[in-house]
């Protein structure tokens, strides 16, 4: 699909394909997480209502999870190279306190993704992979019967742990999106302002504004 040419005071951040996949993942995540959390802790069992009650939640959760994993795979794999940690990222991570306290000027320049985003990316990829594998083992209807009960129990723990990490990461992700103003439009409209790029991802900003950047 053709991406719109952004206005001159804007930079393209996320292509349409990326944005669509992201939101597919997001929607799937909400349902998977809600139904998963509902089965995880009785206090959250009410969340099964989101998918039409307990049996529907149990029935749909693995399908939703599978859809999420597929969409996420399509979304995340092309971003693999961009999310490699660099030497600068380590400094960024060392100065997490400055990140939290909004002292961004003390942080090294970030590329398209800063170190926090990269860690999030890696964690998410790992969690989704683990969730997919353990989820298949836990999928009683089709698969659990083929595995020893010990393996299934281990998978249950892995699934719960990975889900916890993923939800945790997602909370951080959402918090960051709310916190860093101008980010949400990147994933909705696909573009960011020059100032946003300049402030939060200066290295990327430079790259994008270099003549050879091919714009």
């Amino acid at each position, binding site marked *: 699909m053709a991406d719109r040419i952004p206005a001159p005071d804007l930079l393209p951040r996320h292509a349409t394909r990326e944005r669509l996949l992201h939101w597919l993942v997001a929607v799937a995540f909400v349902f998977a997480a809600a139904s998963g959390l509902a089965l995880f802790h009785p206090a959250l*069992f009410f969340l099964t209502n989101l998918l039409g009650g307990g049996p529907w939640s149990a029935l749909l959760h693995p399908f939703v999870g599978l859809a999420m994993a597929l969409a996420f795979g399509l979304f995340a794999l092309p971003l693999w190279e961009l999310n490699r940690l660099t030497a600068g990222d380590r400094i960024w991570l060392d100065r997490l306190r400055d990140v*939290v306290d909004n002292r961004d000027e003390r942080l090294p320049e970030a590329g398209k993704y800063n170190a926090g985003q990269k860690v999030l990316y890696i964690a998410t990829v790992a969690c989704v992979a683990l969730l997919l594998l353990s989820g298949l083992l836990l999928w009683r*209807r089709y698969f659990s019967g083929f595995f020893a009960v010990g393996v299934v129990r281990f998978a249950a723990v892995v699934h719960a*742990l990975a889900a916890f990490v993923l939800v945790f990461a997602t909370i951080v992700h959402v*918090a960051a999106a709310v*916190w860093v103003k101008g980010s949400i439009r990147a994933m909705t409209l696909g573009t960011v*302002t020059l100032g946003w790029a*300049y402030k939060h991802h200066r290295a990327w*900003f430079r790259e994008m504004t270099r003549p050879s950047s091919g714009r």
Partner: protein
Amino acid sequence: MALQSLDIKQRSATTTSPPGVRAEATVELAKLIDTTKCIGCKACQTACMEWNDLRDEVGDCNGTYDNPRDLTAESWTVMRFAEYENPKGDLEWLIRKDGCMHCADPGCLKACPSPGAIVQYANGIVDFHEEHCIGCGYCIAGCPFDVPRISKKDNKAYKCTLCSDRVAVGLEPACVKTCPTGAITFGTKQQMQHDAAERVVDLKSRGFENAGLYDPAGVGGTHVMYVLHHADQPGLYNGLPERPHVSAMVRLWKGAAKPLALGGLLVAALAGWLNYVRVGPKEADADDERAAERAKERTDG
């Protein structure tokens, strides 16, 4: 609470206490299966199917006497036959009626995510309430005895109820009622332990030095117990677990992990929000936009 004997002691996926005022009113009951009296006639299987209106498939013979071959959603109890040659060279045909053990510490109930789908009554019966079952199969992962089965028809989990419906009105379970040799008996757990002790004395007089009662402590004891000729080797009886217990994985998964994880997520969300309130947004202001413009013009130069 309709029937006092069915007062609920534990309820799956429920964080509050069950009604506890009448806790002492009901005694613990147990079924005692004496494998040394059992002839493997399968009358109990038939009685179970009749009372519970279950009709499993007409299967096939796989070269053993085990039919149906395994527990299913429609076969809540099956006989398992094992041929064992003892060290003296004599053959023993060890026959065990398999089914739910009604653990005092039930792994299924612990694992079950659906409130009230699995309950434990004050009399010790662990019962599945299929109307609350969501078909996730966690009970199977939780069970140390591999007992629950999910029906292909309705996607609900089923297992022996210890005829909770009969017991509630003062009857014995259907299998007990029908057992022709008296190998299955039913009564207070205390009485059953007493009877078993008497059987053990008799068995020892017949050369079964390791005869004993199977009431494994690892699951807090069970409300279905076995008299075994070889209590030291329960595995001889088609893999009856030697030390059954609720798996550490299940304990972790459905124990400490729950509050910790939930707490962790709440803390994360709260921390994010409070920090936002504290330090305000990260925002590219007009200065940044101008600086960006300048930088861009330079490179465009």
